[in-house]
Each structure stands twice: as C-alpha cells, then as structure tokens.
C-alpha cells in the first residue's frame, strides 16, 4: 500500500531548559500512523511518550523546544504551523485525551456544558441541539444517569467518570487524529473495554488515526495494530503487538515484558528493569541510551544507532538484537 499516512513524524527532537541544564528529552523520534490505524506508544514513565504527544499537538511546556523534525499531517507540517492555524486544527482535526483528566477539565463549568461547547465550536451542532447531543455522548461513554451527570461539576464525579467525560469531549468533534494519553488509566477493565471498542469503532467508521499512549502492554497488544516502544527519548522497537509479545527483539522490550504481570504466579517472578533512565542532561549521552542498563552491549554499540527492518512492520534500533 502506498497510501499517505495520516500522521508521519520524522526526526523529531525536543529539548527542555531546566535550572540545572538542558534536557534532551526526545532524539530523532520517527513513526507513522495510517488512517484508521491505532498505534500504541509504550515505555517507562519519563521515556518521552507525553512529550511526543505534546510536541505533535503544539502544546509543549514553554520551557520545551522542538530542535528538529517534522510531523506531516494532511499535507502540512504541524511543527511549522502558526499557533493560530494549529489552534484551528486542534479543535477540528486533532484531538487529545490528557493523562490527568481532572486538571484538564474546567472545574467551574458543568460537564455537560463543556461537551456542548465543543459540539458547537467544532462538531457543527447548534446551541439548541448541543445539550441533547452532549447527553448522548455521555451515554456512549457509559456514564450512568447521563441527564443528571451532565449537570455535575468535575469535583462531584469519580476519577474514572472525569476520564470518560474527557473521552466524550475528545471524540465529539470526530477528529482525524486522536492522541489518547493513558485514556483508560483509572477505569475498571469492563469500562475500559467499552471505551476501547468505542475508539475502535470510530477508527473503523471514520478512518480516525489513533496514537494510544499506555504502559499496559497487554491492553496495547489487544487493541492496537502496532506497538512502538520508547526508551529515554528514543524509539527502540516497533512491531505488531503479538509479534512483540512472542518475539521481542530489543533487549529493553524483552525486559518490559518480563516486568508485566500477566499469567505470572507470584510477584517474585516479575523482574524490574535494572538501572534507570540515563540523566538526559548529560552532554556525553551514549548513542544507545539503554547501553548502561544493557546485558547485550557490544563494542559496536557506541556507534550511531541503526534502524533495522525485520520484515515489513517490525523495526528495531539496536546493534545486537535478540
């Protein structure tokens, strides 16, 4: 297939200025998402998943700066767009569900109104029909008693309900690209299944492309077409979920899987990943940012990382893959 991907991120690098120096948070990050495709972005916390999402959305913290790269979306580069054009895109074409629902919602506006606002601004609804449509959205994300809940303020709702409100807001403008940053964290697995099915339906019906950020590898494998593994601001492996589970090739991916509680019989069987993320302020960061933690390191590993294709949809950035 030669179809143009919905989003193509290429060579993306981001730095943050902090009191103690410049942090090289992302380096040469590249991935694609096709129309109707759902990819998962996984990796330890601090590996740069959210920063990748923020950079693409153009909502980086003021201390952050994109130092290189492109994010091609519908023929234009999101990273080069004016703030004004980007704001326009964000409402209509690009939608994001944030990691922290409670702080992302307006605390002094009723949740039904918040959804209705989006429907009027970006969903083509009139202000008379929007409140009804907002209740419909609440129903879709399985909020019990939606008519009454529409009248609630965020503090009156449980964490999981705020999460579902955020999802309703993000989906109500039927975006072409949805970035969901741990959208089902804080939801029970039955509700999670409903939300994932809903995202899947939209992807299927309207060709919505989805970047799904999560640290639940089983969830990623069950609902996403491909899994992209990040470590310390690098993409280290990308593969279809089943393939990654049955045959991880990057040493880090293998360790992530060994830390995942699935069928394991006891806590003792799980192993955490030795060491931590390298200090990204270092000026002498190694080419492979995993090398200090890696058991498979070779002398070659100091050379710039390769991007090895292992079949059409499997990529690993490592000199000595499993």
């Amino acid at each position, binding site marked *: 297939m030669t179809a143009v991907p919905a989003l193509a991120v290429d060579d993306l690098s981001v730095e943050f200025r902090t009191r103690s120096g410049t942090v090289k948070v992302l380096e040469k990050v590249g991935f694609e998402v096709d129309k109707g495709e759902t990819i998962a972005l996984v*990796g*330890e*916390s*601090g*590996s740069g998943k*959210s920063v990748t999402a923020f950079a693409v959305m153009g909502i980086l*913290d003021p201390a952050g700066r994109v130092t290189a790269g492109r994010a091609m979306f519908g023929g234009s580069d999101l990273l080069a767009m004016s703030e004004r054009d980007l704001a326009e895109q964000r409402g209509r074409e690009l939608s994001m569900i944030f*990691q*922290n629902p*409670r*702080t992302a919602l307006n605390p002094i506006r009723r949740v039904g109104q918040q959804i209705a606002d989006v429907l009027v601004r970006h969903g083509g609804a009139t202000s008379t029909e929007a409140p009804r449509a907002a209740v419909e959205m609440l129903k879709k994300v*399985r909020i*019990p*008693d939606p008519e*009454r809940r529409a009248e609630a303020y965020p503090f*009156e*709702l*449980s*964490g*999981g*309900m705020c*999460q*579902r409100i955020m999802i309703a807001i993000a989906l109500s403008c039927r975006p072409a690209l949805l970035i969901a940053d*741990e959208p089902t*964290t*804080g*939801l*029970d*697995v*039955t*509700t*999670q*299944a*409903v939300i994932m099915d809903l995202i899947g339906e939209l992807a299927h019906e309207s060709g919505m492309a989805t970047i799904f950020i999560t*640290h*639940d*590898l*089983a*969830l990623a*494998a*069950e*609902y996403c077409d491909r899994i992209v593994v990040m470590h310390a601001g690098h993409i280290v492996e990308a593969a279809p*979920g*089943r393939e990654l*589970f049955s045959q991880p090739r990057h040493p880090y991916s293998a*360790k*992530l899987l060994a*830390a995942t*509680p*699935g069928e*394991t019989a*006891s*806590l*003792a069987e*799980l*192993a*955490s*990943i030795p060491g*931590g993320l390298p*200090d990204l302020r270092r000026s002498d960061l190694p080419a492979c940012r995993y090398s200090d933690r890696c058991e498979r390191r070779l002398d070659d590993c100091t050379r710039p990382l390769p991007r090895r294709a292992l079949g059409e949809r499997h990529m690993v950035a490592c000199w000595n893959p499993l």
Partner: protein
Amino acid sequence: MTEALLDIAELVKRFPVGNKRLLHAVDEVTLTVGRGETVGLVGESGCGKSTLVRLINRLLDPTSGSIRLARTELADMKARDFARNPNRKRIQMVFQDAGDSLNPRYTAADAIADPLRRLRRMSGAALRERVDRLADMTGLPRDLLTRFPHQLSGGQKARVGIARAIAVEPELLILDEPTAALDVSVQVVILQLLQQLKQELGMSYLFVSHDLNVVRLLCDRVLVMYLGKIVEEGPAAEIFADPRHPYTRALISAIPQADPDKRIGRLRLGGEPRSPIDPDPTVCRFYGRCPKGEPRCSSEMPVLRTAGPARQVACHFA
C-alpha cells in the same frame, strides 16, 4: 483469623444531589482488614471505592455506620478534627491522581518531609537523611528531589506519593490505585517493596486497584464492589479461579489479553448501569446489565450470603 485492625460495619455515605434526592455512594458496607493482611478492593469506576476510602481515612463524614481501628471508634469523630487526632498517623493514604494530591509549591523533598515534620517532629540532618532513604526505597532518583511536581513525569510523582505515605510507618496504608500511573518496571519495584514492608513492619493494606493481575498477585483477600455495595468477597486465589457473582465474572473476563486465544468466550456487558441516585431497595443493583437477570432480581435485593469457607456473594443464583 488474627484480630482485625480495621473493622467496618454497616457503613453508609449518601450525597445530597438536589430536590431531596440522595446518591448512595457507599451502601451498608461491612468489612474487616486483619493485621498484616492485604485486602484488595475492586469494582467499576464510580462504584464508591474512593468514597469508602475517604470515609476510613476520615476525610469525609459517614451518614451512618461504624469504623473501628483496633477497637477505637473513628466514625463519631468529625472529619476536620481527625487531622489533629493521635490516630491520624496510624492510617496513611496514597492517592489516585498522584499529581493532583501533591502541593505544586513543594519540591519532591518537601512533600516527603512534610508528614515527618508534622507527625514525627523531625528536622535537620536526620530529616534529610530519612528523605533520601525514602527516595531510594521507592526508586526515586535523588537528583529529582529538588524538582516541583510539574517537572516530574506521572510515575515519578506517584513515587513521591508513596514515599510520603510510608514515611511515618503507618499501621494501615490505604492505596487508591497507587500504581495506575506507574510503568510496569516501577510497579514491580513498588509492589515488591510493599510486600517487603508488610513483612518487616506488619503493615496492613487496603489496596484499591483496577489492575486485576496486580490484585491477584498482591492481595490475600478481595472485595468486589458494585454501585455502593460489596457483591462478592473471598480469598484472592479463589475469586480469580472461580468467580461467582456475574459482575465479578464479567470483570475477570475483561482483563486485557495479548493472546487472541485467551479472549475467546469473553463476556461483554450490555445494558445501562442503574442510577446510584435513590436506587430501588428491592432491585438488584446489577439488574439490567446482568447476563442472567431473572424476575426475582427485580423484586428482591440479593444480600451477601456465605458461599463456602471465607467466601460471600450477593446474588440469588450464584
């Protein structure tokens, strides 16, 4: 069984929601947590887990019922007086939304030091040393201690929350989705740490989580809640191997599986959840979504009854 550390009976919390209507967030909940025991609390989002936890931690006043911590009644005390009560440091809490519960003007070090200053009157070098040690214990790199919450990633903030809660070595640690924001590697460290602390200090845990694999591995006993009520209770291994209540069955069958073969025979719940506002006392709370649901379920509320040694279930047909 060992003597219960926490003993809760008929606990009720109703929130007024206008027009004299009441939202039944916690409905006649009875439970115990033994010394050194780890009890898991699972259930649908919004079913009342956090409300229950906030009642126990006395951040909320119950509508009725009793909460006893080693025979001391806590339910009569006003929530705002509890902060100064000597029992305060015996119960500590790790919150859902680790980020939200941290003061944005406190550095990570200040946040961890705060309970030690207030409840242990520690200061100076001893305090700094203890903070460093707690950071090490929870896998928080020391160079992050000078950062403010907005400069930390979600998982890093969660570690601060846990370090802060175990700082004063409480008897009961209530954890409301403590590992939700943590990646699997840190989660392993934290879970193994919790298990180790439990052995060393004999701490008891009430562990609220949506991650059923984690609950299975960490908890001795599991409570399943649905719309304000406990619907099933029993040893963790038994609940996972042989869930009896239809809701528990749906929950366990929805655990994400990487292997498509393991997804066969999945239960997907249809129907509308019932409203928690003035619910009909004669209808099972799960009626309408329950794949079984029979006429009796809409005319008689099932009560918790014994279903084997150490097991209880609230369903007419389980």
